[in-house]
């Protein structure tokens, strides 16, 4: 039997969460370290905003946009694979493929002249961008359901609704999740840059530090953003494993 400590130290998700929590809550305690590393700086610790508040705002922006995108993108993906929406499938595919070549930072920037500064335009830009991989993967996942499986479901007397919820979506879930993951990873990074369009996120210490030649601020923001990204990655790994574990051949 593994001891609790071993579990803690070998589980990437738990370890990442612990490191993240320690960084977010304990960053102010590292002030002497930053002061010693950068003796030339008058202010070696970013104190204009609390790191916990910045982290929560960051998560609200990136997570909120990913969630809305997952709901809208999933609905759109389902709609274009039904008979009534099939005609829209091609143009939606083309938009999703082409839109993903637009760099997210440029989409964020263009949203400012069109929508204005502040958190709501950033949320809209991130949501629109997040839609693309989710739509693409929802369509791909639903299309990958083998026709014999559909026929078997029809043969059991399932209607279109029951088939969608009990057969198609569960089978497509891993592919859809991969799309949500792509959106969430991109949104996490773009949310950091959203500090340049008036949304307060973990990018703020980085931007303030870069503009004011304060490398300590930059490192404080960057370390937490990077830890957040690692936790997100580990979390999606865990979710993906859970979704596929019942499949034959899956570990």
């Amino acid at each position, binding site marked *: 039997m593994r001891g609790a400590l071993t579990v803690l130290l070998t589980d990437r998700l738990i370890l990442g969460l612990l490191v993240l929590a320690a960084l977010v809550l304990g960053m102010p305690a590292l002030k002497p370290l930053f002061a010693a590393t950068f003796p030339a700086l008058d202010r070696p610790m970013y104190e204009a905003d609390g790191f916990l508040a910045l982290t929560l705002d960051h998560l609200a922006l990136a997570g909120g946009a990913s969630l809305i995108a997952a709901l809208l993108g999933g609905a759109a993906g389902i709609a274009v694979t039904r008979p009534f929406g099939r005609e829209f499938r091609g143009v939606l595919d083309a938009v999703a493929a082409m839109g993903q070549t637009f*760099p997210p930072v440029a989409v964020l920037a263009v949203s400012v002249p069109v929508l204005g500064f502040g958190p709501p335009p950033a949320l809209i830009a991130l949501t629109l961008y997040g839609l693309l991989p989710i739509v693409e993967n929802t369509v791909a996942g639903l299309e990958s359901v083998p026709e014999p499986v559909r026929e078997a479901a029809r043969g059991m007397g399932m209607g279109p609704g029951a088939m969608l919820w009990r057969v198609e979506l569960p089978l497509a879930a891993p592919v859809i999740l991969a799309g949500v993951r792509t959106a969430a990873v991109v949104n996490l990074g773009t949310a950091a840059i959203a500090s*340049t369009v008036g949304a307060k996120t973990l990018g703020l210490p*980085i931007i303030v530090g870069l503009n004011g030649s304060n490398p300590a601020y930059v490192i404080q923001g960057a370390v937490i953003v990077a830890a957040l*990204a*690692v936790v997100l990655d580990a979390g999606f790994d865990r979710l993906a494993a859970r979704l596929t574990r019942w499949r034959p051949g899956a570990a």
Partner: protein
Amino acid sequence: MIRVRLIHNRVALLLAAVTVVAALALPFLGFAPNRLLSGKAIALSAAAGGGWSAAALLPVALLLAVPFLRAGRMVNALYTGAGALAAAGLVWLAGQHAALLAATASPAARTSFAAGFWVMEAAALLAVLDGVRRLGLGPAGRVAVGALAAALIGGQFAAGHLDQLSIMKEYANQRDVFAGAVLRHAALVAAALLPTLLIGVPLGIAAQRSPAVGRLVFPVLNVVQTIPSIALFGLLLAPLSALAAAFPGLGIGGVGPVPAVIALTLYSLLPIARNTAAGLAGVPEPVREAARGIGMTPRQVFWRVEAPLALPVFLSGLRITLVQAVGLAAVAALIGAGGLGAIMFQGLFANALDLVLLGAVPVILLAVAADAALKLASALALSRLGRMAA
């Protein structure tokens, strides 16, 4: 019983409905006394009213008719062509009205695109996208239609028809800076591409030949890929400034183009190495054996059999790399690497929205152009393989 079908293209119907709503309810242009004030709205009817200007909207009217025409090759060609002409016509109308306004306003006045323009322009371009798909054009045909639409709009820029629009006034102010920024942007991407290919391709080959290498390399590159660019730039700041302090003669610093190129290279390694390995892994074993069987040396097997067969997958990795690097290079402006991102962020920090567009729109165009060029190259490589097999 005969049922008459009224609607033949529901995508076109949706686009037509969106166009009508945008034309009636949203402002087409904005007119401001100077670049910092917000402007008053100008409706499409006002911009198109008077004289022959309204003729520019003829293709838009054609688009509105498409949903009710019996679908066929001719109608789809009309759909595509009208979409491209409508996209160009809307831009022409905006330029025309801006010139009209400029004749009576102060030189500081700014006429800019407003929400109605953007929505109608997007609908017209989506019509082109949908039309191209319905026509069933191949990659070359798609690029040709894209190039035609780009020429119709780009030609107006080149001819000076749009000079009185605010983004072009901004361009006129920044002309020298802009050309330098485009070159710098391309140089950043190219400078990262060289080390990426030199390291990534051998890494991919090694990973395909020995799974142990892959197990070692890919998880590391995957983690790098998940770390947001702005954070990676920040994390590179500390070691690179320490290095600069230790070796002042090296010309390396925590900010500037060098850390940008290093970060871009780190991000670019994954798609290149992964697709090199995947391309080689896709070469069927019997083909390799046949090549060896006819007496090819390992070197010949690689260059004359494996490399050509792996090329399309490799090119798709190169496409992902280039598109990604164009966007990352824009973020690199935050660490003083220059390029189009510098113009974009300067606009964001100074609340100069035309400057934001002047930086961001070319970044998008560069990414789309890189994507189209590499897609075409992939298609050509594939068709060459097809001819070789035939």
